[in-house]
């Protein structure tokens, strides 16, 4: 069985697709491909393909942050992308993915939310990040986080007319205020070894996975242990953080 084969190879430090343990699949980032979206990006990590669209709208701020814009992140595991995905509202995995991507951006202060305030307490920009999986071959979270970041960098404001309180979506002007760039690096533990960018066959037998959000400046903005039925030791987490910071540089290059 594929499971046994994956584990057998790992014992020798090898992987089914021939990669080294710390090697990413080929990365491809294309932006501006959805004309209806204010920002968009398609990211491939090997055969995993994710499309992200950023839409902007105007809404009311939350009462406890009256001078800040609003971020809403949603992920759809469309049945188009895998025989394992089903129609219906997002399941726990899609919800977890959206929330991990969202936290990395929100808590890493990637967007300058105060610059999204139009009128304190009344009108702010709302930023919608919609993650649409097109093909699932593993490590959706890193592909999604990279595509979300690329789409945010691509995004421009539609022209806002404060007198008519109307958006002219055909006239785009000015980029979203982005403070930093962030990417995530996901590691999987198999047979006690840590590898990066797992494919589906590896995710199925992983003891656990750890996703680490890393910013351009090398600081950590999010972590999420997920997948599998296992644990990490302190040393494993510690090494994973170092490895993630090193691999993040490769991913960040694709955002330049």
């Amino acid at each position, binding site marked *: 069985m594929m499971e046994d084969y994956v584990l057998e190879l790992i014992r020798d430090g090898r992987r089914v697709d021939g990669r080294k343990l710390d090697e990413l699949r080929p990365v491809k980032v294309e932006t501006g491909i*959805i004309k*209806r979206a204010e920002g968009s990006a398609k990211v491939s990590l090997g055969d995993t393909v994710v499309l992200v669209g950023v839409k902007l709208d105007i809404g009311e701020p939350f009462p406890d942050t009256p001078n800040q814009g609003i971020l809403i992140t*949603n992920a759809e595991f*469309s*049945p*188009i*992308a*895998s025989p394992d995905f089903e129609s219906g509202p997002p399941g726990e995995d899609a919800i977890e993915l959206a929330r991990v991507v969202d936290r990395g951006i929100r808590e890493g202060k990637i967007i300058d939310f105060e610059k999204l305030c139009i009128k304190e307490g009344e009108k702010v920009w709302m930023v919608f990040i919609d993650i*649409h999986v097109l093909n699932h071959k593993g490590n959706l979270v890193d592909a999604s986080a990279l595509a979300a970041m690329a789409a945010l960098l691509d995004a421009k404001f539609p022209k806002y007319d404060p007198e008519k309180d109307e958006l002219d979506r055909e006239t785009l002007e000015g980029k979203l205020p982005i403070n930093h760039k962030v990417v995530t690096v996901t590691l999987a533990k198999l047979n006690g070894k840590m590898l990066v960018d797992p494919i589906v066959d590896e995710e199925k037998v992983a003891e656990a996975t750890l996703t680490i959000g890393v910013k351009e400046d090398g600081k950590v903005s999010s972590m999420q242990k997920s997948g599998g039925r296992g644990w990490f030791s302190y040393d494993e987490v510690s090494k994973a953080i170092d490895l993630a910071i090193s691999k993040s540089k490769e991913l960040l290059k694709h955002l330049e």
Partner: protein
Amino acid sequence: MKKIEEPLIVDGKRIDGRKPEEIREIEMRVGVIKNADGSALVRFGNTMVVAAVYGPKPLLPKHLQDPEKAILRCRYGMAPFSVPERARPGPDRRSIEISKVLRLALEPAIFLEEYPRAVIEVYAEVLQADGSTRVTSINAASLALADAGVPMRDLVVGLSGGKVDGTLILDLNGKEDNNCEADIPMGFMPRGEKITLLQMDGDLTPEEVKKIIRMVIDAGKKVYEEQKKALHAKYEKEEVV
């Protein structure tokens, strides 16, 4: 129902520069979703749809199976970022209706009786919407079925016709769709001119209706050629969304 005041036809040209019976630039590619048994991306101007087919495969739970033929399931959806105002994810009444007419448009083309107890799932996702999304979905779904090797009587061609500012036109874009006097989305099998999808709303004389249907069938043959070209291209080159 026209909601804007500017003219949609000026000097015999449409707002995007087309002649009344001109179809937008067409892009068709098959095999774009690696996981799927069949898939296709179809673009008419700024309307872009990706479709995937999973199956034929055994239908579970068993009590839903039809012992005499495969069940065809269709789901049409729009990505939240495919429209100017972000759409809420998930099916609404419109997409439920379109999923049904899409299924009725494709069923007559498929030899469902060759796969008793099976299910064939067809998913069409609108990535960019600029009018005529359901007929673009038919083209994508039809190509994805062929790409999956599902045995078919013929490909199903999708194309819309309509009337704007008194002129009969083909392949409505979004602005025309929202402001037309009539809109007729159609699906048909070119061989034998078998109409499998036919909807209309607006205000037309019977003669106009018939004329538009005829225009769509005639022009649809060009779309049919594009479909066949895309299927041939697959064997030459593999490309992925």
